[in-house]
């Protein structure tokens, strides 16, 4: 688990915002401690469901919802849950919201549920959610936990979308199902296969690390 405290110098991308503590709580998940590109958490859905922009967005939103709800509940019960049974309690809470999300998605659209398939239930074991419950929500007020979940959730959606858009564009020539590249473009099928997930993730990690390097030099 990463330790967000160590990034004190806030001279990066969002420095112009002159973050107040609460916006900082939000921004850290979106950018500086992005769950995917910086903390490298929750890789299973990141690699598996980012083959199209639409799937990536839906998966990101589902995960963000579970993250938000479990952070709220864990935070509000933090003085009630004894240390010894906390992991079991967190898992139970997370599993509950995943089940709820699963039903909700089925109720929204059969098609969407068809394309996300088995990966919805796998949100239970997304280590991003458990790590936020353990490292943040269990020690902070509800308000802060909500901000943290919104930031981390937004960061996760953003990251998944970055991967999904690149993979769909190169692997299929489309974006959200609409043709986007000139007709003669020969799609790189490898990009929508699992290997393409690794290539694209590596590319984004490279970009983020270069950005981090620049930030630490200034």
């Amino acid at each position, binding site marked *: 688990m990463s330790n*967000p*405290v160590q990034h004190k110098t806030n001279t990066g991308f969002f420095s112009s915002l002159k973050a107040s503590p609460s916006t900082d709580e939000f921004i850290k998940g979106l950018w500086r401690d992005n769950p995917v590109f910086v903390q490298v958490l929750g890789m299973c859905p990141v690699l598996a469901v980012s*083959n*199209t922009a639409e799937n990536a967005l839906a998966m990101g939103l589902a995960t963000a919802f579970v993250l938000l709800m479990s952070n709220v509940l864990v935070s509000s*019960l*933090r*003085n*009630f*849950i*004894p*240390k*010894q*049974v906390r992991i*079991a*309690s967190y898992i*139970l*809470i997370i*599993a*509950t*919201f995943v*089940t*709820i999300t699963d*039903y*909700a998605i*089925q*109720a929204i*659209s*059969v*098609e969407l549920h*068809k394309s996300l*398939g*088995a990966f919805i239930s796998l949100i239970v074991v997304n280590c991003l959610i458990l790590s936020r419950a353990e490292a*943040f929500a269990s*020690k*902070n*007020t509800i308000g802060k936990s909500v901000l943290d979940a919104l930031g981390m959730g937004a960061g996760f959606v953003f990251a998944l979308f970055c991967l999904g858009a690149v993979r769909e564009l190169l*692997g*299929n020539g489309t974006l959200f199902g609409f043709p986007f590249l000139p007709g003669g473009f020969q799609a790189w*099928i490898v990009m*929508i*296969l699992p290997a393409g997930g690794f290539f694209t993730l590596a590319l984004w990690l490279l970009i983020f690390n270069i950005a981090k390097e620049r930030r630490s030099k200034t």
Partner: protein
Amino acid sequence: MNETKTAPENTPTSSMKMLRAMMGIGILCALLIVLTFEGTLPRIKRLKAAALEEAIFKVLPGTAKTVAFKLDQNNTFVRASSEDKDGQIVYAGYSESGELVGVAIEASGQGYADVIRILYGYDPKSQKVVGFYVLESKETPGLGDKIEKDPDFLANFDALDISLEDDGSAVKNTVVPVKQGAKENPWEVDGITGATISSRAIGNILGISTAFWAPLIHKNQEAFIAQN
């Protein structure tokens, strides 16, 4: 992060407290799940029924109305009630004027990634498969999922021959999958290069399912027409 509040560290936690916490959370979570399940159930049922209905219209071109039939123990077809939803159900499609267009049949079998569930339309008059739709598949995106949208592959099912023997007891030629471009007979399913396993699976699923259903439906055609 700076104003972290931690619960007092060294007070021993009583077993009672742990039990209370776990049971409390358990009950709360159970309540939430059951409420959501009950709340979404009617809509999920409606959406699933609508999706199936839509698929029936797709595989039986010209259908205006559908009726579900159940295969009973005597190998005859009776109208299915809304509670029946086991595998032995077929959906008869009727045109605007009430004529039998064909019968939509659900079938499934092992694909590359997981079980593939399909729906196909069988026309007992011309003894042909006239439509095909993938209800559920987890085949590899970009390769195996071509079974859902590859136009050349789907053309296989515009008029796939399921002719019966003259006494109607069995299918004359079982549907078989062949390599892409190797289709010579009207009962063969042309495969897809790059989706070999998935397209072969479809051919085999159809082969098994039509061999079972086509003679039964042929024998009981009257039941569909009479009970409309």
